């Protein structure tokens, strides 16, 4: 851990907020991807066997 001096709180806040936002974006993208994949699979099966 480097010495961040008197601005440590600010720098860590900036990095923390960024990672939180990016993590939210990536997680949201992955969750929606998985959900749509699942729903589409079910719909394709209904189409082929229904």
């Amino acid at each position, binding site marked *: 851990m480097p010495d961040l001096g008197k601005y440590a709180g600010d720098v860590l806040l900036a990095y923390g907020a960024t990672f939180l936002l990016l993590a939210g*974006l990536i997680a949201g993208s992955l969750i929606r991807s998985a959900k749509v994949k699942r729903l589409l699979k079910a719909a394709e099966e209904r189409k082929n066997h229904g």
Partner: protein
Amino acid sequence: MAINWNAFWEWANPRKFMRWTDRALPLISVLAAVIFVSGLVWGFFFTPDDYRQGSTVKIFYIHVPSAMMAINIWAMMLVASLIWIVRRHHVSALAAKSAAAIGMTMTLIALITGAVWGKPMWGTYWEWDPRLTSFLILLLFYIGYMALWEAIDNPDTAADLTSVLCLVGSVFAILSRYAVLFWNQGLHQGASLSLDAAENVDDVYWYPALVAIAGFILLFVSLVLLRTRTEIRARRLHALEMRERVKDA
């Protein structure tokens, strides 16, 4: 130089797109993760503090790339919208839709890191500085664009209307930028990085920043591919559901 444009557009055929991204996406994702992390690690752990700004200079490894991406993603959406309007490539419209949420996140990151950096420098988190204000306006444009996508049921209608909004919005975004500059000549630094690096920033800061920028770009590419794939599947799902409804009727 002769480019075979037909072959180029072939890539945007949904089926082809799904096929090549299926192979390319894992590769790009890994590359993005590696470069993104190494850029930020380099910047965060292995660069000296600035003699005036102290350790806050480290914020720029996030702030600058995210701000660049916020603007460039809107530009990419504009190009994609134009391609949709002119050539009616569905993938293009869906790519624009997919990019919007990423662009909005980048804008938010640029705003937040800018505000946090501003606190020790300006003594306040928020200052109506032209650049910060412009990004706030850009955020409003992203929100409006995404809200319009959500509000319209028919996907082709939504693609058409959001494309028109993106076009008109781009003009007004540029107008706003000039208006804001006019309204308040601010406290922001000039462009922190320009192509002429030597003039602005020391190499110690410049190289990790370049890596960070590359990381952000790759992160965007992999996310936009992932999200576009999702949208293509969602579109197919929508089509199948419509068929079922017609059959039942």
